[in-house]
């Protein structure tokens, strides 16, 4: 069984959106004999590549959801998780990264390290995923893998060295020189399926030796064996493979491979590298939290004989019901086994177990630790941990960012309202950053997410997958309220006219706080009986949901309860809750509350000739330009811009730069909204409330 584990790889392909990732995946499937015909990504021949199987993705030429597929290469079983490249869908990437053991970082040989590459690289580092780099598109004009390798070192801060040098570049790109074997490789046949080994062309000898030297230098930094062998001039192929593998797995080294997926060159050598350098599941340490022992960390063992621990990382609605993608970390599962969902505390029986290809599946009997499989008909949410009964573990929860934008939606007709509910239910289960709630005042359905495009994609999916036409409102920014000063309260809630009375008095203060919310009890001498302290806390918390300025949630507040009073008969849970609410109302306005707005970190990459326009456009949007880094003819401009000003920016940026610039943005912080805009929002809020009253 151990042999099986060592011949298993779970990898992802992470990349910038246009670096040719889908084409590369397509070629990998082809060479591993998973598909029998090569399709091209949108625009080339209309079919659409196999991996971005959703219609919407086909239309846009991008991959949004992560499909997994299993291939075999050199008797190794490789699960490939296709990860999306766009920053708006990072939750998808992050969830995929959670289950990967290694990754191929694809870079464009012309564009090199771009802003999204940095985002993706950061994610790989956050989840400690070992990676090999693949410099794609060597056939393109301006291709320069040497420069890209330098950028991987400088911009990504990785220690990287080339494992290959190209034979020719751009339209003269023919093959690759392998710096470990010191041989040249060419890719013959109509689809490059025949790999031919030759001697290194004499004109490339010097270059090859020069870069081999650089490789040996880099490797010797973490391999004593290689260092010694260099001195004695007896470096062997096996020795180098071993050292590179060790360096890659410990993330001290990033091997750089190259080729052109589109021209069918270099992909097989990349697959060899995946097998040679990326870890098998037993070489990666995974930790679960034992929920029965105060979340004590437990190291999982990729041993199929132990009880099962697995992680549901993706859900998908297929024509045959819900499909749950799981990664098994420990033990094994088989059809008919009983398993336990530690979040919902439900037991269930394993029905069909399948192994996924991009759009078709293969039934299997079961799966073992290290593997990725999919289950049918399991009711769970993504991020759930599924164990053998008797275990109560949770895989460390993945980082879920708070949504920053919301949109009111409505089904265009009554008939589709049901389908809309179904769609929303599905999406919220699939994507923790996508949220839905009903606004109690307007009774509108509000969806929330990480950016304009993020929500756009879901609105389109509603149309396509659920045939729901929705009418959308204007995107709304998720504002917050926060106090800026300390304010005291002393409030008595009293209702003692007939029947059971109510009495509660609370004294204390509220003040700004670094975290979300804190409640401190300093009441002495039993002035408020202990059982009513949580009631006070509850009363205050109820008030945080809606601030008095514009009805937004309140953050960064500490309540300190110092004293109070009770009545032996009339005090109750509800009385103290009411007292706390009254106290809050009393103190809030005095504590100089202000409105906070989400500020995004925006990175624009543009040809330098347009940087003036970009500076201007960011400035107009109340943006702070933090820096501009010029490197050759490109500028990378970093700015902090309020989210509310960024709607429609992609269109404006495109038209301003002839489509040559691109930008990414992510949530950075909440910051004070300027007074004039705050006034305006408060006025709108007042009018809304008045309109509500009139109704």
């Amino acid at each position: 069984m151990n042999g099986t584990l060592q011949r298993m790889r779970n990898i992802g392909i992470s990349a910038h959106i246009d670096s040719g990732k889908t084409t590369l995946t397509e070629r990998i499937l082809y060479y591993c004999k998973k598909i029998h015909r090569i399709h091209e990504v949108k625009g080339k021949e209309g079919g659409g590549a196999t991996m971005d199987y959703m219609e919407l993705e086909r239309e846009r030429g991008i991959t949004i959801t992560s499909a997994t597929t299993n291939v075999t290469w050199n008797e190794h079983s490789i699960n490939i998780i296709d990860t999306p490249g766009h920053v708006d869908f990072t939750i998808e990437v992050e969830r995929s990264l959670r289950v990967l053991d290694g990754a191929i970082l694809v870079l464009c040989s012309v564009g090199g390290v771009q802003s999204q590459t940095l985002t993706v690289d950061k994610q790989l580092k956050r989840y400690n995923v070992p990676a090999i780099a693949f410099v794609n598109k060597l056939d393109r004009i301006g291709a320069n893998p040497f420069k890209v390798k330098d950028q991987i070192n400088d911009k990504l801060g990785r220690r990287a060295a080339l494992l290959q040098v190209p034979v020719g570049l751009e339209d003269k790109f023919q093959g690759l020189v392998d710096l470990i074997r010191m041989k040249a490789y060419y890719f013959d046949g109509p689809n490059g399926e025949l790999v031919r080994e030759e001697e290194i062309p004499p004109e490339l000898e010097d270059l090859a030796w020069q870069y081999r030297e650089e490789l040996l230098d880099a490797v010797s930094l973490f391999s004593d064996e290689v260092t010694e062998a260099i001195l004695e001039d007896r470096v062997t192929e096996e020795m180098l493979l071993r050292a590179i593998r060790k360096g890659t797995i410990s993330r001290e080294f990033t091997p750089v491979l190259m080729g052109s997926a589109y021209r069918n060159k270099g992909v097989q050598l990349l697959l060899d590298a995946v097998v040679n350098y990326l870890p098998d599941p037993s070489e990666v340490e995974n930790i679960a939290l034992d929920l029965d022992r105060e979340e004590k960390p437990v190291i999982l063992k990729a041993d199929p004989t132990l009880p099962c621990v697995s992680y549901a990382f993706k859900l998908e609605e297929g024509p045959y019901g819900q499909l749950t993608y799981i990664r098994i970390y420990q033990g094994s599962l088989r059809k008919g086994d009983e398993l336990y969902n530690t979040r919902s505390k439900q037991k269930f029986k394993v029905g069909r177990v399948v192994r996924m290809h991009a759009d078709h599946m293969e039934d299997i009997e079961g799966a073992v630790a290290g593997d990725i499989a999919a289950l049918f008909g399991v009711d769970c949410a993504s991020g759930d941990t599924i164990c053998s009964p008797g275990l109560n573990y949770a895989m460390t929860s993945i980082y879920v960012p708070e949504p920053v934008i919301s949109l009111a939606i409505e089904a265009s007709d009554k008939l589709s309202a049901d389908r809309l509910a179904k769609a929303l239910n599905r999406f919220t289960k699939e994507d923790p950053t996508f949220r839905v709630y009903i606004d109690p005042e307007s009774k509108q359905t509000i969806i929330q997410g990480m950016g304009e495009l993020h929500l756009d994609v879901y609105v389109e999916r509603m149309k396509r997958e659920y045939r729901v036409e929705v009418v959308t409102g204007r995107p709304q920014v998720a504002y917050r309220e926060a106090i800026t000063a300390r304010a005291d309260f002393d409030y008595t809630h009293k209702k003692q006219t007939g029947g059971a009375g109510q009495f509660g008095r609370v004294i204390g203060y509220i003040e700004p706080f670094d975290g979300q919310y804190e409640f401190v009890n300093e009441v002495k001498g039993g002035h408020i009986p202990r059982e009513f302290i949580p009631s006070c806390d509850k009363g205050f918390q109820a008030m945080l949901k809606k601030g008095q300025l514009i009805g937004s949630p309140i953050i960064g507040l500490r309540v300190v309860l110092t004293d109070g009073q009770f009545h032996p008969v009339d005090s109750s849970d509800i009385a103290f809750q009411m007292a706390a609410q009254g106290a809050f109302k009393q103190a809030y306005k005095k504590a100089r509350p202000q409105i906070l707005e989400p500020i995004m970190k925006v990175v624009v990459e543009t040809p330098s000739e347009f940087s003036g326009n970009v500076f201007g456009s960011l400035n107009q949007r109340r943006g702070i330009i933090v820096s501009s880094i010029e490197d050759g003819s490109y500028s990378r401009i970093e700015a902090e811009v309020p989210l509310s000003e960024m709607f429609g920016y992609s269109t404006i940026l495109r038209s301003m730069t002839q489509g040559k610039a691109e930008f990414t943005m992510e949530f950075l912080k909440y910051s004070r909204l300027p007074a004039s805009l705050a006034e305006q929002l408060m006025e709108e809020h007042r009018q809304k409330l008045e309109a509500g009253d009139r109704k």
Partner: protein
Amino acid sequence: MVKKILSARSPIKTLEKNLRGGFGPGHLGVFASRKGVGKTACLVQIALDRLFEDKPVIHVSYASRVDYIISWYEELFRKLASRENLKSEMEVHDRVVRNRVILNFRQEGMKTEQVLKSMEALLGPGNFAARTIIVDGFNFYLPCAEDLAQFKKFAVDRQLEFWFSCSLKGEDPLFDDQGLPFVLKDYLSSLDIIITLEHDNGRVRLNLVKDHDQISSKKLRLELDPQTLLLTRI
């Protein structure tokens, strides 16, 4: 208001008072010393002095990474704030950040023309009303008379003040008998102010060696505290 007080007490104002022609729009100044003596600290304190008065600054860097430059500002801001017992520190900090843009030119041999173009883009279409430009890491050891003339013209045309750092290297002596760094002698026509930094018994003293048309070494009543890297009056 807080900032006005802070700024009035600033050693930078002492420095400016010591200059015969003062310092302002159209002028180019240089801090020169060997590496690691404190040029960048001086430049950043000039920038902070302007930023405390809500005057925007462009910081041009030829070498350092942006986060490294930002950490210089953060560090010196924190120390100044604590030395001057600054109230509403966060608010001042926010305004400092808002009024500062870092332009970083990574490539070796970036043309001055291109650097000025980027500055122009920021000042013009970018609507960033900087009056002070800090230039760190400019290589005076490459022939640059023409570049400095371009900077000078730009400074005059756009009414900007420029402060450079000049990293001195090579064998001693680095200075002539008037205290002028040899490397700067060819560029005197473009440079209005030259200040050198020298180690003196564990302290870093500032010498004014070119003050507009006057060339003579004059010890300024300023030093750089080697611990905090803050400029202080003596």
